């Protein structure tokens, strides 16, 4: 499709701002003015609306397609949360208002949402305190590891390493190194979970903590998780829970009860805030009492008279990590979702997510190699190694599914499984939809036996076929305006 800049027509207008009714024209001295005009496109409102509507139709999305993307939790985003987020009482609220003198009285509703979210999250996770500030999951990770570092500094601990399992998300090692620590990576055992004997060997006084996803990225719950906590705590290490997969154990196991000290939550996963094509997200972070003094400021407190206040006097705090109080409108959506579901609904989330995943695992394990043949949690990991012997790889199966109008599962992650295909159906999909997917996966396998050469042509039904990624990187074109220079 043509870009919006290609469609621009000189002097066409799509919007007029409120007129200047003050009867004067102010001038900026010449030396401070720009010389080249900003080349935003010139279009009518209809031109703009049609361009973007047509663009939207080139996308797969949850609203239009089954999206079993492992580890990403692409579940349905209820529409009423959008209504909540757009209420002008929230959307037009300036974040500096509560920082004015007596300004907190102007934002009691918003502060209450944040305070209530902290309490709800604490109850759901078994941790004591939360901050809503981190702007995404990875940002929450960074916040958590910064608190880990602040804790050790305050205690005079000399720490150098953070332990990360080899099946971890790529953000974990990236976060750890940005926070100034080095990585120790621990491989999984044949059951697909962290090898506790190997862990014992690697743990020394220099270990600052351990970051782990539970259930892990193989979709498996480590029954020895509290023993792992004991080992880490024995060297005054911090147990970090990557909450990416919290949706699998909601109401079944709380991180705080099995020894975790700090965790982040990806609201777009467990609490179904929209993914937005890659953000924005929100990444609340929870801690136990021992890390509480290090939480970012400002904090939200409830005064004796029941009013909500911002509080800054926390000398051990790691400081400011967001401009204000977090990605409020996403937190508000998550809050609305939690209120609607309630206790029973939240338990049902994990129940049906795990049921759907195990159903897929059972139906496909005769066709695809299943490296860890045991009950899984909310997602299951297959390997396309049998198909790969016929020269049909995980990526080819992914492209086949696109032509079946199904978004592919995650492929080539986790890195610990060759030709991995990671499937997460989520609780919002029905058995009937899942059956369609299972049939498509079986068909792909069948085709890999009869006509493996056909896979190179997939997908055929999309507006474009496989892009030339080498050309994209070698002949870098990231800006419409630079291509002509």
């Amino acid at each position: 499709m043509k870009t919006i800049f290609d469609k621009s027509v000189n002097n066409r207008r799509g919007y007029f701002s409120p007129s200047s009714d003050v009867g004067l024209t102010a001038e900026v001295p010449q030396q401070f003015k720009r010389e080249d005009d900003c080349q935003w496109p010139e279009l009518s409102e209809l031109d703009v609306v049609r361009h973007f509507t047509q663009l939207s139709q080139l996308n797969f999305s949850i609203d239009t397609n089954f999206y079993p993307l492992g580890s990403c939790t692409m579940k349905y985003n209820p529409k009423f949360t959008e209504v909540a987020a757009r209420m002008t009482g929230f959307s037009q609220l300036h974040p500096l208002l509560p920082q004015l003198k007596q300004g907190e009285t102007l934002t009691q509703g918003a502060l209450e949402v944040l305070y209530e979210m902290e309490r709800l999250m604490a109850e759901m996770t078994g941790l004591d305190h939360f901050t809503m500030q981190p702007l995404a999951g990875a940002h929450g990770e960074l916040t958590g590891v910064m608190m880990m570092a602040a804790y050790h500094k305050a205690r005079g601990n000399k720490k150098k390493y953070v332990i990360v399992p080899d099946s971890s998300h790529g953000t974990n090692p990236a976060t750890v190194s940005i926070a100034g620590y080095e990585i120790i990576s621990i491989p999984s055992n044949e059951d697909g979970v962290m090898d506790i004997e190997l862990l014992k060997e690697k743990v020394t006084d220099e270990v600052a903590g351990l970051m782990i996803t539970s259930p892990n990225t193989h979709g498996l719950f480590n029954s020895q998780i509290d023993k792992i906590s004991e080992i880490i705590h024995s060297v005054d290490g911090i147990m970090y829970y990557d909450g990416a997969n919290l949706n699998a154990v909601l109401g079944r196991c709380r991180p705080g009860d099995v020894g975790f000290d700090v965790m982040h939550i990806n609201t777009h996963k467990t609490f179904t805030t929209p993914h937005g094509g890659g953000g924005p997200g929100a990444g609340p972070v929870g801690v136990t009492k021992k890390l509480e003094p290090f939480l970012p400021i400002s904090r939200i407190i409830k005064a004796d008279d029941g009013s909500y206040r911002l509080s800054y006097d926390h000398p051990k705090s790691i400081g400011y990590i967001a401009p204000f109080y977090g990605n409020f409108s996403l937190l508000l959506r998550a809050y609305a979702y939690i209120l609607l579901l309630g206790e029973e609904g939240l338990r049902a989330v994990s129940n049906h997510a795990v049921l759907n995943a195990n159903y897929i695992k059972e139906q496909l394990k005769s066709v695809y190699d299943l490296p860890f043949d045991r009950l899984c949690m909310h997602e299951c990991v297959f390997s396309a190694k049998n198909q790969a012997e016929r020269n049909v790889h995980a990526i080819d199966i992914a492209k086949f599914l696109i032509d079946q109008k199904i978004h592919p599962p995650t492929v080539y992650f986790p890195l610990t499984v060759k030709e991995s295909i990671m499937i997460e159906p989520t609780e919002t999909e029905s058995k009937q939809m899942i059956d369609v997917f299972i049939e498509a996966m079986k068909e792909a396998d069948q085709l890999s036996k009869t006509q493996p050469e056909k896979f190179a042509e997939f997908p055929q039904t999309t507006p474009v076929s496989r892009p030339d990624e080498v050309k994209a990187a070698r002949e870098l074109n990231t800006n419409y305006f630079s291509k002509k220079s």
Partner: protein
Amino acid sequence: MLIPYIANTDHDVEEMLKVIGVNSIDDLFVDIQPHQVPKSFNLPKGLSEYDCLKRIEQLALKNSTALIPFIGGGYYDHYIPAAVSSIISRGEFYTAYTPYQPECSQGTLQALYEYQSAICTLTGMEVSNASLYDGGTAIYEAVMMAMRINKRKKIVMDGGLNPIYRKMLRSYTHNLSIDFQELPVAHGQSDRAHIKNVLDDKTSAIILQNPNFFGAIDDHSDIIAEAKKHGVLVIESVYPISLGLLKTPGEMGADIVTGEGQSLGLPLNFGGPYLGFMATRKQLVRKMPGRIIGKTTDKKGRDCFVNTLQAREQHIRREKATSNICTNVSLCALQSLVYMSLIGKQGFKELAQTNLNKAEFTRLELEKIEGVNVKRSAPTFNEFTVELPMDASLVVEAMIADGFAAGFPLGQYYQGMERYMIIAVTEKRSKKEILDYAQSLKSVLEKLSSSV
């Protein structure tokens, strides 16, 4: 199960359990040991959609959005055309994932390419990433990028940099050994002599802001030229709406440009989500953090778009990645792109001019009030500093009763500036609102000084 977002019926559940070979859903959770179950899970009972929205509405009513805002501080009350929210409400955009499968994500990918291009022409730079969390984290990422490029450890922050960003930068870099030099705060333009003094061959980058936090407009070309002599990179944080008129960082010669994109069509939303933008010179693109979308062709030679230079990102480089960020703020980037597309080339100039006119009118009206000292040491755009004859926070507090969010008092961030405040005037403020505002300020000052 009375939850509208779970589809399986009891019958479905039964059939699925049979296939799995277990008797109940509880049997699926046997890996969780009896002693590992929750010690408590006391959450409220669920609500119907109607009751839930009613509860949220009640909370919304406890917030005061009726105040007429003259408050900015980097976050502004601009009008957002209706088409913006209509487009980003399309499920095909907001319920899509990160575009890892390009064939079924061309909508998001092309939009992000267009966004990058719109940011480049806005800032006068050559390459932009597909967005970062917000203007503050963008500065932190820019600092890390600069240190990767020239492997130096000293960072100079100009006194005009938004104090919110400064505080964030301090927190993030606490565990890294960085030599920070904060230049003294002044409400005028950057202090050339002082900057010249501190820039040296050990300096990695200097961070400038235009217009600065106090509203002063500057042309940093000379500072940038000076920085280049020492191999110092220049990070320029900008307020996008001002670039409808003002000299771009590209024209000044900046190396890395960042900014808060909230004013490009994003509601204030009590602090987020916002939009961090970042652009740089082509030469430095491989050191830039964040996702980047490139144009290429498919197998049949058709134009298409794809995530490119992914080797810099965390999912490939893991601990060696340029940043731990694994996503951008796609939907906010799209939101700003729709806004920029509606405003258009001519509309942008007019919008910026209207902001300037209304702010200037306000300055002239306020200068008529006894005791109000409007700072004129530098030209300004749509925000400016005034000095009052008393603590500004008391004045702002008193003006709430008249229906105004009158400005942001500076005492909270700067010791000794208790009598100062910054006032922002966007295109939304009418002449009448401005005159009423001036009247309110005048009477509040009179009342407060007589009671002292």
